């Protein structure tokens, strides 16, 4: 079972990102997928998480993820707020939306780091909602590249499932561009 935690702030598309990933994984043939928001009330701008579980067998575990295989961070300002890295398993992947040079990010030994300037790509493709770039789609591209778990083809289908055709087109371009631009550092 692959356990993925999404970290972001209310309104950034954390929950939708987790859902599209689950949908794509199911389309790709994984029998067990779940996606869940943080349980409870949500506030715009407040740190929150969502989770995706992906497995060959139907999932029987609904409790919250303790240690993730992969953590996806939508908002780099969270790094100083939430200790994300210590909730990633040894050998796990840390995917982050940042405009920093990967060398500037401190990373625990044994983790794989994947950096993408998701905001820049979102803005380029005019993925903007209420004035803010929609970074979850580019991060799905980075996810595909860094994890090798879900292919771009199924993520595309997942986006088409969740979004209207006009909106999906720009998102698919952003997905592919992010896939290309993701920088990976094995640590």
């Amino acid at each position: 079972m692959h356990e993925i935690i999404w970290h972001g702030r209310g309104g950034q598309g954390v929950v939708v990102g987790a859902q599209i990933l689950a949908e794509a994984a199911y389309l790709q043939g994984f029998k067990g997928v779940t996606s869940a928001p943080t349980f409870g009330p949500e506030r715009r701008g407040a740190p929150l998480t969502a989770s995706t579980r992906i497995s060959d067998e139907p999932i029987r575990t609904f409790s919250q993820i303790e240690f993730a295989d992969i953590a996806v961070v939508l908002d780099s300002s969270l790094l100083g707020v939430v200790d994300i890295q210590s909730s990633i398993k040894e050998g796990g992947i840390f995917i982050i939306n940042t405009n920093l040079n990967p060398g500037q990010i401190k990373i625990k030994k044994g983790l794989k780091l994947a950096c993408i300037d998701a905001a820049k790509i979102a803005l380029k493709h005019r993925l903007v909602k209420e004035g803010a770039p929609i970074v979850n789609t580019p991060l799905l591209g980075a996810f595909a590249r860094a994890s090798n778990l879900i292919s771009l083809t199924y993520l595309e289908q997942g986006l088409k499932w969740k979004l209207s055709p006009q909106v999906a087109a720009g998102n698919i371009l952003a997905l592919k561009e992010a896939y290309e631009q993701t920088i990976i550092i094995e640590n």
Partner: protein
Amino acid sequence: MDNVQIMTGNTAAAIAAKLCNIQVVAAYPITPQTSLTETLSQFIESGELKAEYVRVESEHSALTVCISASTVGARVFTSTSSHGLLYMHEQLHWAAGSRLPIVMCCVNRGVGAPWSIFNDQQDSVAQRDTGWIQIYCRDNQEILDSVIQAYRIAEEVYAPVMVCYDGFVLSHTMMPVSIPDQKAVNSFLPPYKPHTVLSVENPYNINPVIFPWLRENAEGIICDGYMEMRYKLQKALDCAREVIVATGKKYAKLTGRNYDEMLWRYKTDDAQIILTGMGSIAMEATAAVDQLRKDGVKAGVAGIRVFRPFPVNDVRKAFSKAQTIIVLEKDISYGYEGALCSDIKAALYGTGINVPVHNFIAGLGGRDVKVREIFEAVQQSLQEIAAGKESNKTIWLNCRK
């Protein structure tokens, strides 16, 4: 052809209610149930579902509307959680006493004080004695399947059915759910034909004050007293066991999903340690069982699907070879132990099965219950039992004492 979609438990429940061609919905919003009735109101607004959505000012009125609509022959649906369910308490008795086949979803949530919006099962377990059939679901597929079966059961035994599932844990978690097609559901669940319908052409007085004794009516017929009517409700729930199993078997033919017992089993065939519970916690326990087995502990899960009527015979059968029983539950009968634990022990009384029973009170007010925690707690219990310590014990799991 299977139509599988990834959806939350609340969506699964709404789709199931729509497939059942419900005619009247009355509900009042409360977390974590709200998105269920929101989805239903969208179905009605879009015309996908031809039903009347009655907006009310409280849960008490929501169930009262359902009682009235059911009395005039409609197939009705409502859903609620926690304080909403408690506010319905009086009408829960009324619905059951009136023998109305109402189906309700209870999206399980803890009860205040202190205030909590998070999951446990105190709300529905506290309504155990209202005369409702109670079904607990372990995942979203079971939510959809249980709602559809619930109408058939309710309309056959003339008793209301509460389909319970864990708030947030299932209600807000998306997972694949296979949706049967409308024709298949129609063949399984024909339109509701009530045995009596109150109408303007045939007005009469329902549920007037009833006396303790038998009494002749205006037509000279000796009618039941209160106690006879209560006896019949008890008989109905006793008979419901057969109906529930028969319904489950018929549903299995339709969908291939097996509901031929009032409980479900996971690796119980050779199990010496049997874990039991209701809803998602029992599902979580199956993953703990996998870990226990890796450690050489022969464990299994018997998950209670139907809590009322209590599956006495299924429990006796499922636990007949158990050497230790662990009851996991998200409720407590204060001053005693978990309600399910008492029922399990009572079912085993006199059968010669007299094994240690450890009762885990877990996940109250939404405290997460992890596979690892169940695994560790079972190991701990087994050590204590092996050392001859307390064989009958209530343990508050993951709780600062």
